C-alpha cells in the first residue's frame, strides 16, 4: 500500500467539448461536423440524428465568440454555486448553440439584451477530493 504513489492531481475540462490548452487562453470549445450531411454538433459524436448516418465526423474548433439567444436569471443557489446568476443559450458562428453562464454583467434582465455579443473565457470552478481541478467555459460581454 505504502509504495503506491498517489496519482498527481490533474487539470480536467468539466465537459468533454472543452479542449484544454497549455494556458487558459489556449482553451477552446470543440465540435464535430457530419461528413454525410454537414450538420454541426457541439462536442464529439459517433452518429448523426439528423441524417441517421455514422458520419464520419470531422473535428472542428468552435469560435470563442457568439450571441446570446435566450437566457434565464437563476435565483436558486446550489450548495456550491451562488445565486443569482445568468444561465444562457449562446449561438456560435458555426451554427451550434451551447449552454453557459454569462458573467461580467449584473444578473438583471435589463442588462441582457437578446443578441448581446459575448466572448468565451475559461476558469477553474471546482476541485474533487483527489485534488483534481475542473475547468469550465463561460461567456462575458464582448
Amino acid at each position, binding site marked *: 500500500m505504502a509504495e503506491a504513489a498517489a496519482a498527481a492531481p490533474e487539470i480536467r475540462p*468539466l*465537459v468533454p467539448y472543452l479542449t484544454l490548452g497549455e494556458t487558459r487562453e489556449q482553451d477552446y470549445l470543440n465540435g464535430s461536423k457530419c461528413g454525410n450531411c454537414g450538420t454541426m*454538433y*457541439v462536442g464529439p459524436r459517433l452518429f448523426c*440524428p*439528423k441524417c441517421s448516418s455514422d458520419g464520419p465526423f470531422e473535428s472542428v474548433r468552435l469560435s470563442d465568440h457568439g450571441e446570446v*439567444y*435566450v*437566457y*434565464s*436569471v*437563476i*435565483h*436558486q*443557489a*446550489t*450548495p*456550491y*454555486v451562488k*445565486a*443569482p*446568476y445568468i*444561465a*444562457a*443559450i449562446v*449561438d456560435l458562428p458555426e*451554427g*451550434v*448553440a*451551447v*449552454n*453557459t*453562464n454569462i458573467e461580467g454583467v449584473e444578473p438583471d*434582465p435589463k442588462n441582457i439584451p*437578446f443578441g448581446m455579443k459575448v466572448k468565451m473565457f475559461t476558469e477553474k*470552478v*471546482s*476541485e*474533487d*477530493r483527489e485534488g*483534481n481541478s*475542473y475547468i*469550465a*467555459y463561460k461567456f462575458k460581454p464582448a
Partner: protein
Amino acid sequence: MREVAIVGVSMIKFGRYPDRDVAQLAARAGLDALKDAGMQINSVEALYSGNLYATSGSGQRILQQMGQTGIPVVNVANACATGSTAFREAYLAIASGAYDIVMAVGSEQMGKQGLLGSRGDPATSLEGRVGSYMMPAVFGMAGSEHMRAYGTQQEHFALASVKNHFHSTMNPLAQYQKESPLDEVMNSRVIAYPNTLLMCCPTGDGAAAAILCSAEKARQFTTQPIKVAASVLTSDPFSDRGLTLPDINTLTRNAAKIAYDTAGIGPEDLDQVELHDCFATAELLHYENLGLCGDGEAAKHVASGATWLGNKIPAKYQEDVAPFVDKTYAPKTHAVVNASGGLLSKGHPLGATGVANIAEIVFHLRGQAGNRQVEGSKVGMAHVIGLCSACTLNVLVK
C-alpha cells in the same frame, strides 16, 4: 382499429402522503376507478402502470395491494408523459382488439424533493457552472424565447398563474386551492426568470386511474361512456438547438396536427383543454402550439379571458388584467384551459399527471366537475409533455 371508450376514472387528491407508499396511493385510485365503472378487478384483462421513480414493477406492486389476478402488467416510464403514455398503451390494446377491458394507472411519490435535477459529485456537476438544467430554468429559457420572438412580458405569463390558481379554488382534488392576484404572483420570489415561485408547479404525491374498454362493451358499464377520439404520442424531431435547449414546441405541434386530423376536429371545436403548465411560461407557448390562437397571440389570448372559466375574466381580476387587454383581438377558440387549476395548483406528481388530466376532462364531459364545471363541455383535450422529449395528446368526446 376499434373505437375505445373510458368507462371509469378516478384521482386521489394530490398532496403529500408520508404515511402511505406509492402502491397504496395507486391502489386507492385503481379501486375508485373500478367502483366508478361498476366493475371488479376480475374484469380487467391487463394493467398499464405509469411511474417514473420506480425502477420496475410499479404495476405489480399495485396489484399486490388491490387484487393479484395474474393479468399482464406493463410498466411505463416516459418522463412527465409517463401516465399519459401508459394510458395510450391501454388505448392501443383495446383499439387493436387484443383486450376488451384494461386499466391505466399513473402514480408518483415525490416527497419534498425539489426539481433541481442531477445531484452527482458536486465537483463535476454542471448545474450552475455551465448554465442551468433545472426545470424552472429550462422553461424560463423557453419563455425567454417567446419574449424574444414576440415581446411577451413577464406579466403575460403570470396571468396564466392567476387564472389557474383561481380555477383551483373550485377543485377539491387540487394540492393547492389558493388564489393569487397578479401582484402576488409577480412579487413572489424569482426562481428562474421569468418564472417566479407562484409560476412553478409544486412537487407532491398522487395517483389517478382510468378504465378503458371497447365502445361496444361500454354500455354494459355506464350510460355516459366517453369516446377516445384520438390518442397521440410524439417525440422531439431534430431541430437546430434541440440538443442544447429542449424544444417543447415542435413535438407538441406535430402531435396537435395528428390529433386534430384523427379526431376530425379543429381547435375551435374544443370546449376545454388540460395542458401541461408545469411553469406559467409553458401555458402560453402551448396556446400557440395547440392552435388555440395564432403564433405570437398567446399574451393577447390569456388577457382576452377566452381560456378562463366561463370564457371571461372574473370581475375581481379585471383590474389586474386590464393593462394587458388588446381590444382589437378577437379569440377564435373558446377552450377553457386548465379548469382543474392545472399543474400549477393541482400539483404534478410526475407519473400521475397524465392520467389525472384525462380524469379531469372526463369529469367535465359527464357534468360532474362541480363549481368548476365547463358548461356544456362536449369535446376536451388532455396534453402532456415530458422533457427529452415526449408529448401526448388525448382527445375525449362525450
